[in-house]
C-alpha cells in the first residue's frame, strides 16, 4: 500500500470514528446543556450551545415542585430488589444446569430463553387482572415479581455461560472435601464468579430501571410510580417544560452511564456471549 493511500485511509477512519462519537454522545450532550439553560434561552430562534448564564432552576423545579426524588426512590427500591432476586434464583438455576446432572439441560436453557422472547404486551393484560385479584397493583411487590420474570432468563443465560468456563477440577476437589452441591455453589462457585455477577446484576438493574409499560399499567400513585412513568408524565398544561425534562433525563441517565462506562468491557463480553458462540 502506498503512503498517500494509507494516509487517506486513516483520515477516513478517523472521520468515521468522529461521526460515530457525535452520533452516540451528541444528543445527550445537547440534553445536558439544555438542562442548565434558562427557558428564555431555550426559546430563542438561535440555540446557545453552552449555557450562559448557567442555571440550576430546572433541577430545583423537578425536585421541589415535581417531587422527583420520590420516583427515584421507587425506582431504586424496585430495581434493587429485582436485581437481588434475579441474581439469587438465576445463579441457582445456572449452577444446576452447568454443574449438576440435569437431563436435557440445553432444552431447558432454550425454553428459558424462548420465554423471554414473548412480547410483553401479550402478558400485560392478564397479569393486570391477576395482580388486581391478589392486591398487587400499585405495590413494589407487583413490579418486582414482574421484573424478576422479565430479567431472569438473560441472567441465567449469562451466568450459565460463565459457570461453564470454570474448570471442573474445582468441583471434584470440593466433592472430595465433603462439600455438597449447595456448599459448592455458595462457597466456591459464587465467590469465583464475582465479576460476572456484578455485570449480570448491572444488566438486570438497567432493564428494571428503564422499564416503562408494566410500571405505567400497574402503578397509579406517586408513592409507587417509577422514574420512566414520572418523566413520561412531565407535561405542563400550556407548554412542554423541555428544561425540566432535560434535567430529569440527566439525573436518571448519568449514573447509568457512569456505571456502564466503568463496566463496559464486561458488559460487551456478557451480552455478545450468546450471539457469537460458534
Amino acid at each position: 500500500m502506498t503512503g498517500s493511500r494509507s494516509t487517506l485511509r486513516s483520515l477516513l477512519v478517523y472521520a468515521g470514528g468522529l461521526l460515530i462519537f457525535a452520533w452516540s454522545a451528541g444528543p445527550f450532550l445537547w440534553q445536558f446543556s439544555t438542562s442548565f439553560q434558562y427557558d428564555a434561552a431555550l426559546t430563542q430562534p438561535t440555540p446557545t450551545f453552552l449555557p450562559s448564564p448557567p442555571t440550576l432552576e430546572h433541577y430545583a423545579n423537578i425536585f421541589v415542585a415535581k417531587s422527583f426524588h420520590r420516583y427515584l426512590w421507587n425506582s431504586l427500591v424496585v430495581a434493587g430488589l429485582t436485581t437481588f432476586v434475579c441474581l439469587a434464583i438465576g445463579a441457582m438455576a445456572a449452577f444446576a444446569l452447568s454443574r449438576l446432572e440435569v437431563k436435557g439441560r440445553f432444552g431447558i436453557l432454550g425454553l428459558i430463553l424462548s420465554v423471554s422472547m414473548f412480547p410483553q404486551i401479550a402478558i400485560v393484560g392478564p397479569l393486570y387482572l391477576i395482580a388486581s385479584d391478589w392486591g398487587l397493583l400499585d405495590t413494589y411487590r407487583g413490579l418486582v415479581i414482574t421484573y424478576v420474570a422479565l430479567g431472569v432468563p438473560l441472567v441465567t443465560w449469562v451466568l450459565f455461560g460463565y459457570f461453564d468456563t470454570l474448570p471442573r477440577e474445582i468441583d471434584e476437589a470440593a466433592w472430595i472435601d465433603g462439600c455438597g452441591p449447595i456448599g459448592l455453589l455458595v462457597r466456591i462457585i459464587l465467590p469465583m464468579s464475582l465479576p460476572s455477577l456484578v455485570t449480570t446484576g448491572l444488566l438486570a438493574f438497567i432493564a428494571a430501571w428503564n422499564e416503562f409499560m408494566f410500571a405505567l399499567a400497574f402503578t397509579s400513585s406517586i408513592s409507587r410510580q417509577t422514574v420512566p412513568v414520572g418523566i413520561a408524565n412531565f407535561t405542563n398544561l400550556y407548554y412542554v417544560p423541555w428544561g425540566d425534562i432535560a434535567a430529569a433525563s440527566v439525573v436518571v441517565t448519568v449514573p447509568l452511564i457512569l456505571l456502564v462506562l466503568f463496566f463496559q468491557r464486561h458488559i460487551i463480553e456478557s451480552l455478545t456471549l450468546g450471539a457469537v458462540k460458534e
Partner: protein
Amino acid sequence: MAATARLGEQAGPRKGTGRLASRLTPWLLLLPVAVSLGAVSVYPIFEGLRLSLTNTSLVTQEHDFIGLRNYEALIADPLFWNAWRHTVFFTFVSTLAETLIGLAMALLLFEHFTGRGMIRAAMLVPWAMPTVVTSKMFGWLFDGQYGLVNYLLRSVGLIDQNVNWYGSIDNAMATIIIADVWKTTPFMALLLLAGLQTVPKSLIEAARIDGAGAWSTFWNVRLPLLMPTLLIAGMFRALDAFRVFDLVYVLTGGGPADSTETLSTFSYKILFSTLQFGYGSALSTAMFVTEALIAAGFGYFIMRKMRSAR
C-alpha cells in the same frame, strides 16, 4: 462444552447421602426460575388466549365465552390493520437501517486507531439510556419550533422553513424510526464487531496473499463468516422492533391521526383505556402469533445457513 463430564454423572456426591436427594437437588435449584417464569410469563399467555375468547370488559363487567367473535371483529377492524401496517413498516425499515449502519460502524471499529476505546464506550450511551428519556430527548431535538435539528438543517440550507416533525402525519413515523435507529444501532454495531473478531485472521491473510482486495475480502470471506451473527442479531432486533411501545407512546401517543399507531400501543389503549380485556387479548394474541412466526422464519433461515456452512 457438552463433552465435559459432569459431576453427577461421575462418582455421585458424598457417600451416605441418598441417591434421591442428589437427584432432586438440581430440580429444586431450578424451581424458583420455573415458578417465576411459569406464573408471570407462561400462565398469562394462556390466560390471554382464554380471555381472547370472551367478551371480558371491566366496564360492562361481562365475561362470557363468545368463541372466535373477537378475532372476527379484529379482521374487520380498520384500526387494527392500520396499526399492523405501521408496525410491519417500522420493523422492516428500522431493522434494515440498523443492521446496515451497524455493519458499517463495526467494520470501521475493526480498524485499529487511537481513541477507539473511547468511541466504543460512548456507543453504550444510547443503549443504557431509558427509552422514555430517548423519546423525550428526540421530542426536544425534533421540536417543530425550537428544535435543534430544524436549526441545524436551516443553517446548512437543507430546509428554508421549520419542519413539523412528529406533529405531522407525513413525518411522525420517520421521526420515530430515526429515534429508534439512534438508540439501537450502536449496540448492534458492538454485537457485529464481536462477531467480526471471531473471523480467523489467517483466513483474511490467506485471501490477501491470493491477491484479493479489501472489497473482495469483505464480500467473499468476512461477510459469509459473519452471516450467522448478522442473522441472529437481526432476528433479535426485528422481534424487539415489532413490539415497539415506549418510543411511540411517549413521543406521539400513536398520533397524529393514528399515523404512528403500532400494534403494542393500539393493544395497550384497548386494554387500559377502553378496558376491553377480551378484545385487547385477541389483539395481543395475534401479535404473539406473528412474533412466533417471525422467530420461526429467522430460525429456519439460520439453521439452513449453519448447516450449509458445515
